[in-house]
């Protein structure tokens, strides 16, 4: 019994301490914005490695998700004779939910895990320590560009995901299932609101990008510098960021679209 209590106490203390460390880490990372302004090439390099290199998985997944939406939506809507609303259904689900959420989950798997492993290995091979001894702040030099690159690229990736998804839905709905093309586009145009749907979707993906970047970078920076420690940290990144993306999605949806 006492042992269990001790364990509970230790776990609580450890997780509180970790939360505190991660908050300081984030503040320090965000303060690196001035250094990025002086050296934009650091940010551009990271935009390429976290953003551009994630593009392939985002476009292909977006296409298939859109196609599935077109197919499933058609079967459901045709029961009610409302096939013409397929365009709205596909676009609304993508822009409001699937675009931000699925692209953030894919981003966590593709770029987040890579970031954790990279930072963790830099720590294990004393590169971060070496920078500190060369009087270069590793958080500002290594972490900040990656943090801002994630915050900038996730909304863009989500937008691309949604656009490609709409094309996928069109391909299946109009191309294969002969939904009227005019109705597909015009219903989408009249029913998707710029502020309610698109802006809210962008806000969601900015928040998700921020969350995934924070978790991935902190897990890497805080990793135990051994091969086992880095592998555990990488797993934690994918698990924790997927979990927080989904949980935050619920909270944000409730705030944006619900009457809670």
């Amino acid at each position: 019994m006492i042992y269990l209590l001790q364990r509970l106490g230790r776990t609580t203390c450890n997780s509180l301490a970790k939360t505190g460390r991660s908050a300081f880490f984030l503040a320090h990372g965000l303060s690196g914005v001035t250094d990025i302004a002086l050296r934009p090439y650091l940010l551009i390099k990271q935009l390429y490695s976290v953003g551009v290199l994630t593009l392939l998985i985002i476009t292909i997944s977006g296409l298939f998700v859109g196609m599935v939406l077109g197919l499933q939506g058609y079967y459901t809507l045709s029961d009610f004779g409302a096939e013409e609303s397929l365009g709205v259904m596909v676009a609304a689900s993508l822009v409001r939910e699937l675009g931000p959420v699925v692209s953030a989950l894919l981003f966590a798997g593709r770029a987040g895990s890579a970031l954790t492993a990279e930072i963790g290995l830099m720590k294990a091979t004393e590169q971060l320590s070496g920078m500190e001894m060369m009087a270069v702040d590793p958080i500002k030099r290594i972490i900040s560009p990656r943090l801002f690159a994630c915050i900038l690229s996730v909304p863009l990736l989500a937008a691309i995901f949604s656009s490609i998804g709409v094309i996928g839905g069109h391909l299946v709905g109009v191309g294969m299932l002969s939904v009227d093309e005019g109705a597909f586009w015009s219903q989408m145009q009249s029913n998707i609101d710029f502020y309610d749907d698109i802006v809210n979707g962008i806000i969601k993906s900015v928040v998700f990008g921020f969350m995934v970047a924070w978790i991935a970078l902190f897990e890497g920076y805080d990793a135990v510098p051994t091969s086992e420690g880095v592998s555990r940290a990488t797993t934690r990144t994918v698990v924790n960021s997927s979990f927080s993306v989904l949980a935050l999605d619920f909270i944000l949806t409730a705030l944006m679209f619900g009457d809670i």
Partner: protein
Amino acid sequence: MIPSMEKRGQPQNIVSIKNLSFSRHDRKIFDDISLQIPRGKITAIMGPSGTGKTTLLKLIGGQIKADQGEIKVDEQAIGELSLSGLYALRKKMGMLFQSGALLTDLTVYDNVAFPLREHTRLTESMIRTLVLMKLQAVGLRGARDLMPNQLSGGMARRVALARAIALDPTMIMYDEPFTGQDPISMGALLHLIKTLNNTLGLTSIIVSHDVQETAAIADYIFILANGKIVDQGTPPQIADTQSDWVKQFMGGDADGPVRFHYPAPDYADDLLMLGK
């Protein structure tokens, strides 16, 4: 040592540590130790693995904070410096990590240029000249376009050394520079450490357990064990030590005050399971 390199008015000791204590996870790593590191000399800190030799270098570099006591580098107390003050002081220190700690995404050239680009506003052509000079000093001018993963362990350490002297520091700390080196790279490193120290007027601190090699170039030796300084002196003084422990350590004997066997019940009893 070149006497003219010792500027007048500068205190004789570049690092002075007073009553330092440090523990990690309830284990005492340093227990009230004091030591002085003289300017312009090669000082070796030796001791068995796990005695916190690397920790001592990290304490001197201000990467971790001491629990008690005072560490002064160049008359500045490390514990009381602000982060920017600490970074300013670190520009005067070079550190050679055991792994080399080269940035793996940059070439040899860019690794050596890294501190110059971060801390100076020199033109690229000036940086090129300086980088080539530093690489020439370690004999790797021809390897400038290689990536760190194409270098052997000894070469990586020499590149790291070129990077450590890029900003012309007044002090270099070497963390286990000889571990895992073949005799030729070992000879090259020994020669480099000695000549750099003499020609650039540096102060060198070598942390090592390669006893013979380190003793060959050191001017003064501290031996650490169990959180204490167990012996100190010039290499001949250490060689004539009265302490059995230091004799065993310097000679590398398998058995002595430090037993070969980890404490265990009697061997015969154990085999016959009489103890259980």
